[in-house]
């Protein structure tokens, strides 16, 4: 245990060295301070932003967008994915279309979203929901299709109804796949929330950092990037915790 803490402290120290190097580089003015603020000025911008309330507002807007879009996408992805995954004909007919759409860059639908919804919050939200749909949907299809056939035989022997089969057998056994898909979807949601805000100029961290860059407020820009990193880290960790809790039964099994 002590050894682990020691390593952890060591890795913090290395991180501190990197930040110190950044400070030295910034102080040396090798790169103009207009483009590269040091950690001190970035920290100052963070403190100012939180004191004035701009960062909490932007953060809240972005988080809201991201989570709502992600939840919509996850719900739709699981429902549609379950329908496709449960039926062999549906897989045969729709599978290739899904495989075609899988590598499509999600941001490529942004122009389509703008055409349909204008530069609005709804556009950003629908683009997030659409883009984040695919990882969850495809993972759900895969999970439902890969359920151990023996389990279905058991359910038949027990005379379970179709709904009970889905709820008690197919859903739990594909849960690891679904959660892995949802984790990917969450990353996509954050990316699309930022891109959507930049394009539609909706208030949030994405538009905040773009404006900071356009007005040469480099410390505000770097502070925004730091916040986005923290946001990405916290959401990923949160989902890991949920995953560990939901899949506890699986660990015991091994």
């Amino acid at each position, binding site marked *: 245990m002590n050894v682990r803490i020691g390593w952890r402290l060591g890795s913090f120290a290395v991180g501190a060295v990197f930040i110190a190097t950044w400070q030295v580089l910034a102080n040396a003015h090798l790169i103009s301070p207009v483009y590269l603020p040091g950690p001190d000025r970035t920290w100052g911008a963070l403190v100012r932003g939180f004191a004035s309330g701009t960062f909490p507002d932007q953060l809240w807007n972005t988080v809201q967008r991201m989570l709502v879009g992600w939840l919509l996408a996850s719900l739709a992805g699981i429902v549609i994915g379950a329908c496709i995954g449960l039926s062999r004909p549906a897989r045969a007919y729709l599978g290739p279309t899904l495989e*075609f759409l899988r590598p499509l860059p999600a941001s490529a639908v942004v*122009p389509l979203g703008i055409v349909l919804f204008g530069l609005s919050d709804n556009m950003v939200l629908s683009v997030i929901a659409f883009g984040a749909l695919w990882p969850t949907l495809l993972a759900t299809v895969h999970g439902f299709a890969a359920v151990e056939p023996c389990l279905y035989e058991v359910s038949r022997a027990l005379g379970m109804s179709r709904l009970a089969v889905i709820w008690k057998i197919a859903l739990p056994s594909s849960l690891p796949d679904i959660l892995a898909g949802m984790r990917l979807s969450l990353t996509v949601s954050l990316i699309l929330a930022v891109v959507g805000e930049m394009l539609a100029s909706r208030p949030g961290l994405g538009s905040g950092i773009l404006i900071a860059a356009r007005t040469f407020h480099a410390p505000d820009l770097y502070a925004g990037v730091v916040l986005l990193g923290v946001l990405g880290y916290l959401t990923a960790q949160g989902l890991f915790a949920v995953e560990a809790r939901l899949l506890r039964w699986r660990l015991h099994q091994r």
Partner: protein
Amino acid sequence: MKRAAAVLRGAVFPLALIAIAQIAAMAVRLQSDTLASPAAVLAAGAGAFADGSILIATAQTLGNAFGGLALGGSAGLICGVLLGSSIVADRLMEFSVESLRPIPSVALIPVSMLTFGFGFRMEIAIVAFAAFWPVLILTRSAVSGVDAGLLDVARVLRLGPLARTVKIILPAALPRIFVAFRLAAGIALTVAVTVEVSTNPLGLGYNMMLAEQSLHPDLMLAYLLWIGIVGWALNFTINAAQRRFFGRSVQVRPVA
């Protein structure tokens, strides 16, 4: 024969969708600034091919994607090998890696814009950042997962660190490193298009935005379709290469 039947079955749904869209467009005599009939999309796409604009845009996007992939991927490969073969380095870098990795690549768009201005360098820098992390993480786990017996062989042969890496570790980890690059290639294309859609005036993403802003929904949809085809073709090619070179040895999905 069976394969042909599967392809046909897969084609039914998209073809039916296109047919319905075409019939609907003709039934209402579509005259719109936001939507276009499939026939119009096809015509716009053919026009863009004829004047070469779509080909230039594709070359720009792929150039940026592969440039960034080469830069970020090779950096990720080197760092991944270092962290994978030295537990000390891995543990000491843990905090730095874990705090930089979650930064969404799009957050760097303004940073790169401020530093490089618009153009290839700005986009390649962002793609390189995005491609760096998956290659680093997967290479690290591939290298640290190299069979201990092979490392014993290296010790018996008294190979230096460089020879050990080049002759033993890299060949042993190669199939999984390839998987890392496959993943990173998809990410590179996605990020390149994203940068173009949002800011950088280059490539497929920008041309698509341009078509949208100049009220040419047919051309915009043609670009969307083409981006889909390019993404699919890239994915297909890399998958085929993986099967050809590594057979079934890496069919298992990487533990991300």
